[in-house]
């Protein structure tokens, strides 16, 4: 599974992330996993996970093939 990242998250993870999922992994579990792999993400005001271009509820199960993205605090406008 490829994980996209943007803004400061893109700079923190520096480069594309490839991850393979064993069993049922929720959005919340993925967030924890990513925080462990990239401690810089823990310094952010917040970060959330988008699944197929929608904000992912924490309990949502992600599947191989889903488009996953790390969304740091947005600041458009």
């Amino acid at each position, binding site marked *: 599974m490829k994980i996209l990242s943007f803004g*400061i998250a893109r700079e923190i993870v520096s480069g594309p992330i490839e991850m393979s999922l064993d069993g049922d992994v929720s959005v919340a579990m993925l967030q924890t996993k990513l925080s462990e792999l990239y401690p810089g993400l823990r310094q952010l005001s917040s970060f959330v996970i*988008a699944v197929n271009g929608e*904000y992912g509820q924490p309990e949502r199960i992600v599947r191989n093939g889903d488009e996953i*993205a790390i969304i*740091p*605090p947005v*600041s*458009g*406008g």
Partner: protein
Amino acid sequence: MIDIKISSEPLDVQSCIAWAMSPESGGIDVFIGTVRNTTKGKQVVRLEFEAYESMALKEMEKIAAYSLAKWPVHKILIHHRTGALSVGEIPVIIVVSAAHRAAAFDACRYAIDTLKETVPIWKKEVFEDGERWVAAHP
């Protein structure tokens, strides 16, 4: 009617307004965001905008659809720019037309407030001596 766009080209205020005008409308509210020369007292050289484009378009579409459902407005346009913008350039323009002005104001303000909260677009402030992703850190 809804017009949503993310573009790396300069936004054209005049054509955005022209799109929203119609014989049924009595009031149009337009919000134009512009790049300010300072932030917290520091001189800004430029802003750099990055979007998760496919998702940002969907979130912008949701804002527009909700506005049309909640207020009696006719048309709503939300255009956002990406890339490097200098002071005075326009990162965002929102145009709302309605029969009566209250709905246009309410929907336009809702749209920009919500865009800043939900749409996956990020800006980096670039200063003479460094740079900073806005809102990234507490």
